[in-house]
């Protein structure tokens, strides 16, 4: 079992380097350089050169990447070209809001999606089945941003029940209830697509498992139907369900970018959009690094979960 974990961790290392290198080289290829934003009319060509040299921009790209890696391993991610703050600080104050949002969306999506999926599979043609199909249909067709706009239009503008954006009301107190109110619309906007996906995956996984021989045997043994469905069948259906949840996590991170933008949520998503617009390499690289680590970590957790659920994997 520990061999399995170590193997998974070893695999993550080249992925990390690959991903960060890729984004580094790509960002470098963008037209225009960060120096452009700093040039003033008084500066001569030599001054610009000096500036470029000081920022290390005159060196070959791979050298710059290695230097970046070196600094990163020391914990220094450089300073933002846009705000001049240390990148770690800029990103740091954004990590928590994004985490709160993303984790909530994941939790809500999984709970709603898996529950409805199981109910839809176990009680075909019932109200649950219809509900599940409906939600799945909405989730797969409607982009998160459109749902978000509709929800804001309906609940904030017309009905005034919920705030239109931001994380807290301006009063400054960080009350949980206030946070919760601000989270409702962004969470629903993102969770609809996720839940729709999980419903479909869960339903088809359950249906497949319910046709298996060991489920028939469990019934023949005299086990009551709830035990057959929720102990024997569901337990096996969880394997493909967990796999698809794991595969949906990168999408969640991406979706967060758009939703954060709409709701003015002070998270990494809005920072990313700003940084891309400003060609703020250090921040772009910093966010990429965070995301890569987060994704790799999630993969590892999923792998572990899989090993816990499926005894065949443990060897």
């Amino acid at each position, binding site marked *: 079992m520990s061999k399995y974990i170590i193997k998974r961790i070893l695999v993550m290392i080249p992925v990390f380097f690959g991903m960060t290198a890729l984004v580094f080289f790509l960002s470098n290829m963008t037209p225009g350089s960060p120096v452009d934003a700093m040039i003033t009319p008084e500066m001569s060509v030599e001054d610009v050169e000096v500036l470029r040299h000081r920022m290390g921009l005159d060196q070959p790209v791979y050298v710059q990447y290695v230097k970046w890696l070196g600094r990163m391993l020391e914990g220094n991610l450089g300073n933002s070209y846009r705000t001049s703050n240390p990148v770690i600080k800029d990103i740091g104050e954004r990590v928590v809001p994004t985490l709160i949002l993303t984790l909530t969306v994941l939790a809500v999506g999984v709970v709603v999606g898996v529950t409805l999926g199981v109910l839809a599979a176990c009680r075909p043609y019932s109200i649950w089945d219809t509900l599940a199909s409906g939600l799945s249909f909405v989730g797969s067709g409607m982009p998160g941003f459109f749902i978000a*706009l509709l929800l804001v239009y309906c609940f904030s503008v017309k009905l005034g029940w919920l705030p239109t954006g931001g994380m807290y009301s301006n009063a400054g107190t960080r009350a949980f209830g206030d946070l919760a109110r601000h989270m409702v619309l962004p969470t629903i906007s993102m969770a609809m697509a996720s839940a729709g996906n999980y419903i479909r995956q869960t339903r088809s996984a359950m249906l497949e498992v319910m046709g298996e021989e060991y489920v028939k045997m469990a019934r023949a043994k005299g086990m009551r139907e709830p035990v057959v469905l929720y102990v024997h069948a569901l337990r096996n259906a969880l394997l493909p369900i967990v796999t698809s949840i794991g595969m949906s996590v990168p999408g969640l991170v991406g979706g967060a970018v758009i939703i954060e*933008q709409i709701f003015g949520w002070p998270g990494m998503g809005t920072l990313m959009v700003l940084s891309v617009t400003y060609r703020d390499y250090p921040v772009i690289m910093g966010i*990429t690094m965070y*995301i890569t680590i987060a994704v790799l970590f999630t993969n590892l957790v999923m792998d572990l979960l899989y090993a816990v659920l499926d005894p065949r994997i443990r060897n």
Partner: protein
Amino acid sequence: MKKNVFLRDAVGRFVRHRVAMVSLIILVLEILSILLLPLILDLDPFTSYPGQFNQAPGNRFLFGTDAVGRDIFSRIIYGGRVSLSVGFIAASISALIGVPLGLIAGFYDNGVRGVIMRIVDIFMSFPALVIQMVLVTVLGASARSLMLVLGFLGWTGYTRLVYSKVLSVKQEVYVEAARSTGATNLTQMVRYILPNAMAPVFVTFSFAVAGNILAESGLSFLGLGVQLPTPTWGNMIRDAQTLSTLMYRPWMWIPAGVVLVATVVCINFVGDGLRAALDPKIKI
């Protein structure tokens, strides 16, 4: 002979799938409108009509005008052109990259397989939107660059699919027979294995088109996709980010959104229908 019976069966099954048929009809009507209406009617998505800013839907403008006086109806029709062509072409590029890679990865038993599938893993584990955003800044934001970006990032689904199909088909007796009569690797892959993998490829293709349309609209919504004045459903919805537009001028963004959702949903249903039609085991 056999192929024709299979196709005939598949078409029959598709037709019986009512939702898919209805969706297909809607899509065909939509595509026809997008192609033909500009020829019949006098549609102009680019001209600003002075004095006609922010008009609600009325006699002259079916869906009203936007902030600089452009006809929204025309913009939706033209936007459809952009969105659909980006979706379609990007999906084709992805298929052209992904399917051969999947064939190779499945067929060759050596290190090549490991390398390809590992790259697939890496691509799939990274948030697509983030890479798309970075690439778009490199290539500049336009419909053409989006086609390339989405196309070059979307191949992994095809590869995984074709890979697993190839693995299972490779064991079949007729492939072995072909091998033993001297067929080259390429012939084996293309003539014998590929036709069996094509059915799920078509299904994936339709879902990919829908996904690309959503992705394009997301990027355009953020301002990182197709740039104004070229209309696309995504950047038309972008206007709704200002509170006044959101609140007081719903015609500017709701029609575009509805058309977007309807198109994507119909494509998804057609994809479902294809899946049911091409797999005899699925009951309709």
